[in-house]
C-alpha cells in the first residue's frame, strides 16, 4: 500500500530539486593544480597521521607516472590543472541537525535528508563538498557495536589500526591513474565496521553531493562486515549542474568476511558535466556474499565497474545495475568478478537506457581461476534505445581457466515498440507518460531491489531524464 502511495507521488516532484546550488564560501581552497606542496597542505589541514601523509605523497608520485586510460570513452575534457581538488564548507563536524549552518541545511532539506531520517533510517552521513558535515547514527545501531563514522575520524579514533590495515589495500594507488589521484587527495567518506554476528536490520545510508564549481570529490568508503554479520549500506548522490568540468574519483572498498553478507546500493545522479571515474571493489571470504545494486544517472562520462573478488570457497556475488545515458553522455558501466576459489557464484543483471544520442556501453569481465572448480556465473544485459540517434554497446569479457565451470551470457538490445505505446495511449495515457511507463517497467527489476524511497527516487530520475530536452552540454 505504501508502495502505491509513494509511486503516485512521482507526478508531483519538483524538477528543480536536482538542479540548485548554494553560494560557495569555503574556508580553504587549494590552488587549481596538483603538486606535492598541495598534497602536503591537504594532509596538514586534515591533521593526517604520518603514515597517511606519506601514503598521499607516494600516491601522487604514482599518479604522475601513470597515464590516463585510453580504452574507454574520451576524457579529454578533463584538465586536472583546472580542478580545485579540495573544497571544504565552512563548518566543522556536527552531530546535531540544529547546529548545521542554514544554507547547507537548506540544501539537505531540499534533498530530503532529515525526512529520510525521520523515516527511521539507521544513520545519516551526508557529505557536503569534501567534508562530512552531518553525521548521526541511531543509538540502537551503535549499541550493537556498529561503528559508522566519517573517514577522518576513523583514521584518528579507536579503529585507526583497522583503517590502516585495510585502506587502499583492495584498490591500491597503482591500480590506475585515478586511483592514484584518489590516494593523494582523498577526503571525506564513510567508515563502517559491523562486528562478527551482528545483523543490522535497517539500512545505513549516506547521501552526498558536489557543490562548489570545479571541485573534485574524492570520498573514500571503507566497509568491513565481520564474520557472519549483515549490513545494507546505501549511498545516494546527486549534484547540481555547472559549466566547468567536474571530476569524481571516489573509492569504495568492501570487506566481507566469512559467512557475512553485505548489500551495497547506490544511486548516482551526477550533473551532466561530471567525469565520474569511480572505483569500487569487494573482497568476499568463504561463504560470504556481496550484493550490489547500482543506478548510474547523469554525468558527462562515467567509468564504473564494481569488482568482486570471490576469495573464499562458496562466496557469492550478485550485481543488479541500471544506466541511463541522455544527450551528450557516455556511460561506460558494468561489473567485474574474479572467481578465485572453488564453488563460488556470480550473477550479473544489467539494464541500460539510451536517449537523444546518449551512449551506453556495458563492459564486464568474468574471470574464473584455474583452481576455482565448480563455479557458476551468469551474465544478462539488456539495452533499450529510445531513438535511432542513441547508441548501446556490449563488451563482455570472459576468462575461464578450468573446464568445470557453468557460465552463461545473454544480451538483448531493443526499442520501445510503437504498438505498446499505442496500446497504453488507447487507455487514455499520454504519449509521454506511456513511454515513461514502458521505460520504468524496463527498469523495474532494478528498482524492486531498492528500498521504496530510493525506488521512488529512481523512478523520478527516469521521468526527469525522459522529459529532459535541454541537458546542458559541457563547455570544457
Amino acid at each position, binding site marked *: *500500500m505504501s508502495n*502505491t*502511495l509513494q*509511486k503516485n507521488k512521482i507526478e508531483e516532484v519538483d524538477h528543480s530539486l536536482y538542479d540548485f546550488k548554494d553560494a560557495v564560501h569555503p574556508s580553504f581552497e587549494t590552488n587549481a593544480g596538483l603538486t606535492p606542496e598541495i598534497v602536503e597542505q591537504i594532509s596538514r589541514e586534515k591533521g593526517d597521521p604520518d603514515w597517511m601523509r606519506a601514503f598521499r605523497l607516494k600516491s601522487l608520485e604514482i599518479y604522475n607516472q601513470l597515464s590516463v586510460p585510453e580504452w574507454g570513452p574520451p576524457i579529454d575534457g578533463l584538465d586536472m590543472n583546472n580542478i580545485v581538488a579540495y573544497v571544504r564548507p565552512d563548518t566543522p563536524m556536527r552531530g546535531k541537525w540544529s547546529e548545521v549552518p542554514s544554507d547547507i541545511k537548506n540544501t539537505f532539506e531540499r534533498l530530503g535528508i532529515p525526512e529520510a531520517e525521520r523515516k527511521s533510517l539507521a544513520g545519516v552521513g551526508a557529505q557536503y563538498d569534501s567534508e562530512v558535515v552531518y553525521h548521526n547514527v541511531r543509538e540502537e545501531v551503535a549499541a550493537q557495536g556498529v561503528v559508522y563514522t566519517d573517514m577522518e575520524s576513523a583514521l584518528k579514533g579507536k579503529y585507526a589500526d583497522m583503517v590502516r590495515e585495510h585502506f587502499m589495500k583492495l584498490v591500491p594507488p597503482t591500480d590506475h591513474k585515478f586511483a592514484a589521484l584518489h590516494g593523494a587527495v582523498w577526503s571525506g567518506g564513510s567508515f563502517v565496521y559491523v562486528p562478527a554476528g551482528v545483523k543490522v536490520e535497517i539500512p545505513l545510508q549516506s547521501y552526498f553531493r558536489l557543490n562548489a564549481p570545479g571541485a573534485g570529490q574524492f570520498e573514500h568508503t571503507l566497509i568491513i562486515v565481520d564474520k557472519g554479520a549483515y549490513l545494507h549500506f546505501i549511498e545516494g548522490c546527486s549534484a547540481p549542474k555547472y559549466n566547468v568540468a567536474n571530476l569524481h574519483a571516489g573509492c569504495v572498498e568492501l570487506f566481507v568476511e566469512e559467512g557475512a553478507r553485505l548489500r551495497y546500493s547506490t544511486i548516482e545522479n551526477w550533473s551532466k558535466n561530471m567525469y565520474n571515474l569511480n572505483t569500487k571493489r569487494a573482497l568476499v571470504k568463504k561463504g560470504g556474499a556481496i550484493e550490489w545494486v547500482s543506478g548510474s544517472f547523469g554525468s558527462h562520462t562515467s567509468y564504473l565497474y564494481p569488482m568482486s573478488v570471490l576469495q573464499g570457497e562458496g562466496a557469492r556475488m550478485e550485481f543488479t545495475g541500471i544506466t541511463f545515458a541522455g544527450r551528450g553522455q557516455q556511460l561506460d558501466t558494468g561489473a567485474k568478478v574474479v572467481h578465485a576459489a572453488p564453488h563460488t557464484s556470480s550473477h550479473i543483471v544489467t539494464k541500460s537506457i539510451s536517449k537523444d544520442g546518449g551512449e551506453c556501453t556495458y563492459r564486464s569481465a568474468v574471470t574464473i581461476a584455474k583452481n576455482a572448480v565448480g563455479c557458476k556465473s551468469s551474465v544478462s544485459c539488456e539495452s533499450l534505445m529510445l531513438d535511432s540517434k542513441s547508441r548501446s554497446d556490449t563488451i563482455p569479457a570472459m576468462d575461464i581457466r578450468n573446464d568445470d565451470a557453468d557460465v552463461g551470457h545473454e544480451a538483448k538490445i531493443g526499442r520501445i*515498440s*510503437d*504498438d*505498446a505505446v*499505442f*496500446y*497504453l*495511449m*488507447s*487507455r*487514455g*495515457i*499520454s*504519449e509521454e*507518460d*506511456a513511454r515513461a*511507463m*514502458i521505460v*520504468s*517497467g*524496463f*527498469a*523495474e*527489476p532494478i528498482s524492486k531491489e531498492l528500498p521504496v524511497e530510493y525506488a521512488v527516487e529512481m523512478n523520478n530520475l527516469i521521468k526527469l531524464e525522459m522529459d529532459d530536452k535541454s541537458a546542458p552540454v559541457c563547455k570544457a
Partner: protein
Amino acid sequence: MAEKLLEVSGLHASVEDKEILSGLDLNVSAGETHVIMGPNGAGKSTLGNVILGNPEYIINAGKILFEGADITREKTDARARRGIFMSFQSPEEVPGVTLEDFLRVSKTAVTGKPLKVFAFKKQLKKTMAALNMDESYAQRYLNVGFSGGEKKKAEILQMLTLQPKLAILDETDSGLDVDAVRIVSEGIRQYKNESNALLIITHNAKILEGLKVDYVHILTDGKIVHTGGPELIDEISRDGFHRWEESAAQ
C-alpha cells in the same frame, strides 16, 4: 431519439500505401449494440484501429465524429479520454508494469480525477472475481506470460474498470475456449447499459449469445455493403459471406 455517439462518414484509410477502408459509413448511438462481420482482410480490425487513431493508419478522406466533435485528427489518448475503448485482438505485453498499477494510471487519466485508492482496489477485486480471474493477476506484469484467454479477460477487465461510452471489441472471442467465451460474454453483458454502446468485430457468433444485438453490418472490401438485424448472424453462420462478396465484386 438516442444520443449519437459515433458518426463515421466517407472514411478512406490506408496502411503502408495500401487502401483498406474505401468509403465507410457507420453511425452508432447510445444504448446500441452493433456487430461488424466480414471475411478476413475486409478491413474489420483497421476500422477499430482507425476509430482509435492508431498512427500506423493514414486517413485519406472522410470524418470521424464522437458526440458531435470531430476527432478525425485527434491523438489516441484524447479519444480514450472522450470514452472510446478497444479490446485488442492481440494485446501488447508491458514488462515491469503491473496490471493494477496500469489500471490505476489509466483510470486516473480517463476520469481526470484523483483515484480513491481503497474503493478502486475493492472494485477491482470484485470485477476480477466476476471474470473468474485469479487475484494474483493484479500484481502480474501487464499481459506478460498471460495465456490468450487471460489476455482477453484482462481486456474485458479494463473495459469494466474504465467504463467507456463506446467499447469496440476486436475479435475478443478468438482463441477462447467455451468457458472463457461464456465468462467474457457475461462481462460484456455486465458492461452494457442504455447510455453506452458496443461495436463488436467478429466472425464468430458465439460471443453474441445472450446479447441484444441491434444492427449487423457486413464489411467487405473496405465498405459496409449491407446492414441488417440480428437475423443476419444466423445466415452468416450458415452461408458465410459469399453473397456479399459476389455483389461487391459486381
